[in-house]
């Protein structure tokens, strides 16, 4: 039995998800490829967004992939960590902003 939930080698097998549903797999990878093409945002900017999102959703495959992708694109570690702080700020903010709900309730119920 596999001893860990994640195996780095599985990242390279991502394409194999199409084997169990070729039509949806093909549509997904076509969409995925299109998303990361140069558009109003550069491919470089999209790579940084992907890196930040990867950390937000805590996907080890995505972190591996988009750290490597960033290095290949010449993205610096300073840019990478700033992107992560954006993710961290939104994620932390998402918890803290719910504090308003908490405060509302406390204020309503407390004498």
């Amino acid at each position, binding site marked *: 039995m596999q001893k860990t939930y994640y195996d780095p080698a599985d990242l*390279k097998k991502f394409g194999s998800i199409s084997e169990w549903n070729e039509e949806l797999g093909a549509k997904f990878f076509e969409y995925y490829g299109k998303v990361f093409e140069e558009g109003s945002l*550069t*491919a*470089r900017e999209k790579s940084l967004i992907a890196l930040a999102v990867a950390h937000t959703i805590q996907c080890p495959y995505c972190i591996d992939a988009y750290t*490597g*992708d960033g*290095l*290949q*694109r*010449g993205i*610096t570690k*300073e840019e990478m960590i700033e992107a992560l702080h954006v993710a961290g700020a939104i994620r932390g903010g998402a918890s803290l902003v719910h504090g308003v709900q908490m405060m509302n309730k406390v204020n309503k119920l407390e004498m």
Partner: protein
Amino acid sequence: MIKSLQRRESELADSKRQQEILANGIFKSGELPKFADKIAETNQFPLKARKLEILQINVGYMCNQVCAHCHVDAGPDRKEIMTKATMQEILDVVQQTGAHTLDLTGGAPEMNPNFRWFVEEASRLGVEDFIVRSNLTIIRANKAYHDLPEFFKNHNIHVVSSMPHWTKGKTDKQRGDGVFDKSIQALLDLNAVGYGMPDSPLKLDLVYNPSGAFLPGDQVSLQKDFKKALLEDFGIYFHQLFALTNLPISRFLDYLIASENYEDYMYALVEAYNPAAVRNVMCTNTLSVSWDGYLYDCDFNQMLQIPVNSSAKHISEYKTELLEGRHIAISQHCYGCTAGAGSSCQGSVT
């Protein structure tokens, strides 16, 4: 400043040890396919030399820098320097070769005491493209070199220079402390005499090597980012950017092994193997001449001391019929030239 492998008396200073590493391990066990087997899958084995177009001459391993990734293991302590006699032998055969490009490399080629004489003589031979691979910092190293931009201009030299990134941190980490600032100043000096300016015939191209155990990204995108950053930050212009893959030899091999990245890097190279890149790998139209006049299929084979498969092994024995069609000597380092868009001293090959 780090020291050369030779100075450190590292076992990797011995090219035979490097060849052993590339031939054994994951390739001997069959975990990864050998390069010869890989190119045989598309009937491209043996790889054969076509008509010679580029004569690349390594005029010596001495360099004012000691870059962490250097495949030459160049540095101030290297004493291998091409003599005037060998240069004369090369001049005697340049026209006979029919090569349209002469490409001088090192070390820092400018540190060869006969560099200027050789450039003056060779520039009279009328080759279409005369390249000098300058590390930039040599131009600012001391007063004796400050006029190099003018000298290059007077001989219509095509300057090709290394620049791993547009930021100081990444550049100095790969090429040594202070290299970025000196390189910027040297690029400004080259721009000042017309090199790299839009529409200028004085060609200034940059070479990008990844500063670590990863492959280069798309050459066109990197060029765009380099151009934007160097212009906005320093007002610097250049023409093209060549994105080169680091080959797993010499100091880069030492780094890969020491950082425990060797196997992963070889996996990455093999996974990125592009059969379409094999057709245009530089060894098929290039001949590399070492500081002592010996012939190799490329600068990398020169450093690994893998000689050409020909009875003509030295520039003094040059004969087109003995070298054209020769079987290129290959090993697993060749995956570096066939990964992704391919890699050559002139950048991507596809």
